């Protein structure tokens, strides 16, 4: 994990041994080696097909 002050970067390892990078605001109290649960809204997900083209856009709208 990296504390950047305004935000904290967490490197999480899942059961499938995939590393995820997670950014949380402020200072996180999670420590190295802790287990945490993680949630994600479906709107935030993007899906690319095998050719790399986007098939599902994230539904988080830009503020404009």
């Amino acid at each position: 994990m990296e504390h950047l002050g305004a935000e904290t970067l967490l490197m999480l390892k899942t059961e499938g041994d995939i590393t995820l990078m997670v950014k949380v605001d402020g200072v996180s109290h999670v420590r190295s080696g802790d287990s945490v649960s993680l949630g994600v809204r479906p709107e935030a997900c993007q899906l690319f097909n095998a050719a790399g083209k986007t098939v599902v856009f994230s539904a988080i709208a830009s503020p404009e």
Partner: protein
Amino acid sequence: MTYVSLENIAKDFGTTRVIKGIDLSIEQGEFVVFVGPSGCGKSTLLRLIAGLEQMSEGRLVIDGRDMTAVDSANRGVAMVFQSYALYPHMTVADNITFGMRMNRVDKAIIAERLERAATMLHLQPYLDRKPAHLSGGQRQRVAIGRAIVRDPSVFLFDEPLSNLDAALRHEMRVEILKLHKSLGSTMIYVTHDQVEAMTMADKIVVLNGGHIEQVGSPLDLYLKPANRFVAEFLGSPKINCFETVVQAVDKGVAILPLPGGATVSLPLDSADISKGDAVTLAIRPEHFVVGETEPQKSKRRWSWWSTLVLKPC
């Protein structure tokens, strides 16, 4: 209204095609950033617009005039180079006025434009110095001043901040944006730094391997990337991607397995995904919610994954 228009521009170096047919239109007064990894052709594209390289194919129109065969001096563009390209044997004032003096511009006009540029860029105290006695940021401003006095229809910047340290880079970013606001000119800016692209551009052009991956506003590109390359190129830290296989498609909703056993349901816009397709799921690092306990039932629209272990480091 389109001010600068690139039509199917291509460039070959020997037998290698480095620019593979670029179509792009730029509005008057827009701040456009070309961004991409090194070797993607962004600098070459800028040099084609400047007329420092000859196009192999295509057409360039600036302000309604076909510039394809016009030499760089008459395209009405001004360029700021990565190395600043200041003439080491001339003072700051001479550097800024060199082009005008060589083209025999009226002395009163030269003096007036020099005065205006120097005021705008806070260069008055340094006008008599040689470039060797200036800091990096000051040299950068002289290079910009040299562009301003030409009163160009298009400003071209080739990675102008890459030789500056982080603090100065931020300062110059703000200064260039202010300049853009006060001059209202069209500017094309090349960088490999996605932070510069995100913070400065009205319109980002993401280039990769000599073609355009996507064109759009910074937030559009960030939130709605057209493909995986753009999604991965923009954003720091990088977007999380993982390969997975579609478990089921039911009434326009795809069910995708997540690492750890959970699933996520995504409504599909189109029907070109079916069960068993290999896909890549991508989630930005800041779009996660970290909780130390089990989720509450009320937040059912959140897909919860099983417990993850923070990587020891």
